[in-house]
C-alpha cells in the first residue's frame, strides 16, 4: 500500500448506505431492531448517512413476497415501501445525500420511469440515481397487468433497450426550453420540446416527454450484476456498478476486468465506479468484534433459516431435518426450481449437486451441523473489527483498486449505521481519504463524475450500438 501511495495521490473513498434489506442479513429479533416501514426509520437512516457525508442512500427492490414450499416466507423481515415515493419523501429531510433506487426494466415502461426519475432529480436538486435491474420471472409477473416476464436470454436486451429509450427521453429536453418571459408571453422557446420517437421490437413509442430536463440531466446509472452480460452492460452505459464483496484479489480482478471493458465503449476508466456491497461488525477491539460477528451470524441463521437455505439448494422439502444434525444424504433435485420463489439467490446455484457435495465434504471435515455449515457458507460479514481496523481495511481495498468504495449494509434498522458514522468515518477523514464536507450539491459531483451532456450521451450511444 505504501508503494502505491507514493506513486499516486490517495484515492477518495466513496460510501453509500443500503437500507437493511428483506432477507436474513437484517436481524429483526434484536431488541434494537425498529420498524421497517415507518417513515421515521427511513429518516433516521438517511440523516445518519448524511451526517456522515455519505455519497448516497441505496434501496433494493422486490415486487413479490417470497415463497418457499408454496407458502409465503415468514422468517425474514418483510414489507417495503414504494421506492420512488420513499426517496421523494427522503429528499425533504436531507439536503445533499444521493438517493438511489432499484427499478426493474421488465415490469415498467420507459415513459413513466423516466418521468419519475426526472421528477425525483428535480425534487432533490440533482440527487437521483437509478439501479437498473432486470427480471424474467413469471412469478413476479403475476402482480402486473402486462404479465411482462421474458425469456431469460432477452432480459438484458430489454434492459439495454429500456435504458437507451429512457436516455432518449431524458435528453429530449436540453435545458434551455423554458423561457417563462411574462412580458413577451413566451413560456416555451419551441413547441416541439421533449419530442422523441423510438421504434424497436421492445418499444414502439413516440410523442413528447413531459418532464423538462432535471438538474443532473439524468439520474446516475447503477448496474448490479456480476455476470459477463452484466459487466458488459455496465461498461456500456452505467456510471457505477454494484457488485458483491469478495477477497482483495478477486476484487482487483473484477475491478480490472470491468475498467478494461470501458475503452471498447469509448469511455475512460474514471467514468465507472466499482462499488461492492459490504457488511460490517464494529466493537472496541478486533477480538470483541469477532465474537460479536459470530453472535450476529447466529441471529441471522436460526435453525429454520438454515433449513430454508438448505432447501433452496436442494430444491426439496427438508423440513423433517434437524438443523443441529448432519446434512442430508440425498442429492439436490436437479429439476425446475420450485421450492423457493421470488428470490434471486436461488439462481446463483448453477450446479446444485456439485455445491451440495462441497458442502457435505466441508461439514464432514469440520464436524459442522446444518446450521453451522450455513453460517459458514452464506453471508459472512465483510469487515469485522475495531473502527480503526475496519477503516484501514476499507481504505486498503480502495487504494489497491479492488473497489472505489462500498455500499454498506447494516444488519439493524434503523440504527445500524450509527456506530460506523461515529467511529469509522472520522478515521477515514483523518486519513484524508473521505470528505469532511460535501463539496458539491449533486450526486454526480459527490461521485466525481463529469456533468452529463445530452450530446455526449447521444454520441456515446451511437458508439456503443
Amino acid at each position: 500500500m505504501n508503494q502505491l501511495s507514493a506513486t499516486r495521490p490517495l484515492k477518495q473513498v466513496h460510501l453509500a448506505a443500503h437500507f437493511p434489506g428483506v432477507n436474513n442479513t437484517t436481524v429483526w429479533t434484536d431488541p434494537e431492531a425498529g420498524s421497517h416501514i415507518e417513515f421515521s426509520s427511513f429518516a433516521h437512516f438517511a440523516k445518519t448517512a448524511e451526517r456522515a457525508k455519505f455519497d448516497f442512500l441505496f434501496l433494493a427492490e422486490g415486487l413479490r413476497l417470497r415463497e418457499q414450499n408454496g407458502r409465503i416466507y415468514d422468517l425474514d423481515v418483510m414489507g417495503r415501501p414504494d421506492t420512488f415515493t420513499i426517496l421523494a419523501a427522503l429528499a425533504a429531510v436531507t439536503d445533499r445525500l444521493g438517493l438511489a433506487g432499484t427499478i426493474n426494466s421488465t415490469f415498467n415502461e420507459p415513459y413513466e420511469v423516466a418521468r419519475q426519475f426526472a421528477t425525483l432529480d428535480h425534487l432533490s436538486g440533482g440527487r437521483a440515481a437509478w439501479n437498473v435491474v432486470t427480471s424474467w420471472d413469471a412469478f413476479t409477473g403475476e402482480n402486473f397487468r402486462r404479465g411482462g416476464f421474458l425469456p431469460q436470454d432477452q432480459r438484458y436486451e430489454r434492459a439495454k433497450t429500456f435504458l437507451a429509450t429512457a436516455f432518449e427521453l431524458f435528453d429530449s429536453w436540453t435545458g434551455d426550453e423554458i423561457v417563462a418571459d411574462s412580458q413577451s408571453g413566451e413560456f416555451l422557446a419551441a413547441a416541439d420540446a421533449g419530442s422523441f420517437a423510438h421504434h424497436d421490437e421492445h418499444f414502439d413509442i413516440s410523442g413528447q416527454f413531459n418532464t423538462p430536463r432535471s438538474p443532473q440531466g439524468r439520474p446516475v446509472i447503477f448496474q448490479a450484476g456480476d455476470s459477463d452480460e452484466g459487466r458488459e452492460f455496465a461498461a456500456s452505459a452505467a456510471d457505477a456498478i454494484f457488485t458483491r464483496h469478495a477477497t482483495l484479489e478477486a476484487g482487483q480482478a473484477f475491478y480490472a476486468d470491468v475498467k478494461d471493458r470501458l475503452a471498447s465503449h469509448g469511455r475512460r476508466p474514471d467514468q465507472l465506479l466499482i462499488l461492492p456491497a459490504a457488511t460490517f461488525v464494529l466493537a472496541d477491539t478486533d477480538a470483541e468484534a469477532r465474537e460479536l460477528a459470530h453472535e450476529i451470524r447466529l441471529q441471522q441463521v436460526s435453525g429454520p433459516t438454515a433449513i430454508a437455505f438448505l432447501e433452496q439448494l436442494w430444491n426439496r422439502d427438508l423440513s423433517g431435518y434437524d438443523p443441529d444434525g448432519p446434512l442430508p444424504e440425498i442429492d439436490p433435485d436437479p429439476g425446475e426450481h420450485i421450492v423457493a420463489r421470488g428470490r434471486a439467490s436461488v439462481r446463483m446455484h448453477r450446479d446444485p449437486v456439485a455445491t451440495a457435495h462441497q458442502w457435505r465434504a466441508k461439514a464432514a471435515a469440520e464436524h459442522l451441523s446444518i446450521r453451522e455449515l450455513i453460517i459458514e457458507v452464506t453471508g459472512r460479514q465483510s469487515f469485522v473489527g475495531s473502527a480503526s481496523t475496519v477503516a484501514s481495511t476499507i481504505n486498503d481495498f480502495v487504494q489497491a483498486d479492488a473497489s472505489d468504495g462500498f455500499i454498506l449494509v447494516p444488519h439493524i434498522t434503523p440504527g445500524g449505521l450509527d456506530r460506523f458514522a461515529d467511529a469509522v468515518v472520522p478515521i477515514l477523514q483523518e486519513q484524508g481519504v473521505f470528505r469532511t464536507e460535501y463539496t458539491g450539491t449533486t450526486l454526480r459531483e459527490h461521485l466525481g463524475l463529469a456533468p452529463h451532456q445530452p450530446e455526449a450521451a447521444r454520441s456515446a450511444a451511437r458508439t456503443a450500438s
Partner: protein
Amino acid sequence: MAGLHAETSLHLAAALDGAGWHPAAWREPDARPGDLLTAGYWAALVAECEDGLLDFATFEDSLSLQSTDPDRPDQRIDQVRGRLDAVLVAARVGPLTRHVGLIPTAIVTHTEPFHLSKAIATLDWVTSGRAGVRVKVSPRQDEAAHFGRRSLSAGPGLVDDLMHEAADYVEVLRRLWDSWEDDAEIRDTAAGKFVDIAKLHYIDFEGRWFRVKGPSITPRPPQGQPVVTALAHSAPGYSLLARSSDVGFVTPHDRSHAAGIVSQVRAAQAAAGRADAPVHIFADLLVYLDDDANRAAARKARLDDLAGGPQASDALAVTGTPAQLADLLLDWRSAGLTGFRLRPAAIPHDLRQVTRGLVPELQRRAAFRSEYRSSSLRGLLGLPKPVNRYAAA
C-alpha cells in the same frame, strides 16, 4: 351518509396545478413560472393550504404535455408546459406538513395498479395517514402513443370502457391495501416468525383488462385504505364515483344542477349496492377572488385578454369577493354537496384569497373548522377506517 350530512362544517380543498388554472396565470407579477419544477414552490403552496386548515390539496397530472387539444399536443408556447410526477410531489411535501391531506392524480389507463397501490400506501406511511389518490382515465391518443402498449379506438364506448377499467383498477388498489391485515407483522421471536402468514392474502383479481395476484409488498397503510377520489362530468363518471370513490369531484353550474348531479350519484350508489357507503360529493369551482368584486372581474378580463380569449373550463368560474363565494358555497350546500374543491385561477393570489379570505369568512359563519382536530385525512373527512375485507370477523 347521515354522518356526512349532519356536519355543520364545510369541507374545502385546493386543486393545485402549475401557476394556477388560468392559462395566462403564469404571467401575473406574483407568479413564479421559473420555479414550477422545484420542491420549494410546492412546499410553499401546500404550507399555505395547511395554514388555511384545508382538508386537502390535490395535484394535477398527465402523461403528456399540457394541451388544449383533447388528443394531441397543441403546439402552443404561450402557456405552462412540462410538469412533475404528482405522486412524487405529494411525497416530497409530505414530511413538511402535519395535517393537510395530499391527493395526487394518477392516470390509471397506462399504469400498473400494483405500482400505484404501493406508491399511495407509501405516501400514507410517509404522512402518517394523510394520503389519497385521484384516479384519472386517459382517452388521449398522444398518451397511448407514449406507452405503445394499447390503441384506444375513439368511439362512443371508449370513455365508458375506460371508466369500467378504472373501477377494476380501484378494486385492485383497495384489495392490495387490505392484503396485509393491520396486525400481520407479529415479530414472534420465539417462533422465529416475522409475520403471521394467515394475515397475508392473495387478492387473485381477474377482470376484463388485467389480473393481479398479490399480496402487496407494502404493509397496510395507517388509514387502512387511503382516500380514493375521481372527477366526473357525466353518467359513466358518476357511476365510477358511486362504485369506487370516497370523494367525488363534480362540476355543476348552479344549485339545481348540483342537486341533479348529487341525486344521480346517490342513485348510482344504490344501484351499485353502496347506498350506505359514505361518499363525499365536492363541487369544483374555478375562483377569481379579490376584496373588491370589480377588481376580481377586471383581473379575469385582463387574464383572458392576455390569453387571447375567455378561458374554457369544465368547472364554473366564480368571480367576486371571498364573502360572495362563501354565500355561494353555503347556498349550494343545500343541494347535498358536502364540500368544494377550489381551483385557484392564479397562484399564489387566488389560493391566498381562499386561505386568508374565504376561510376566515366561513369561520365567522361557523361553517368551517377553526383548528385541525384529526391528523388523518379520513379523520378530517369524517370517513371511518375501512374494515379489512380479508380479516376474520
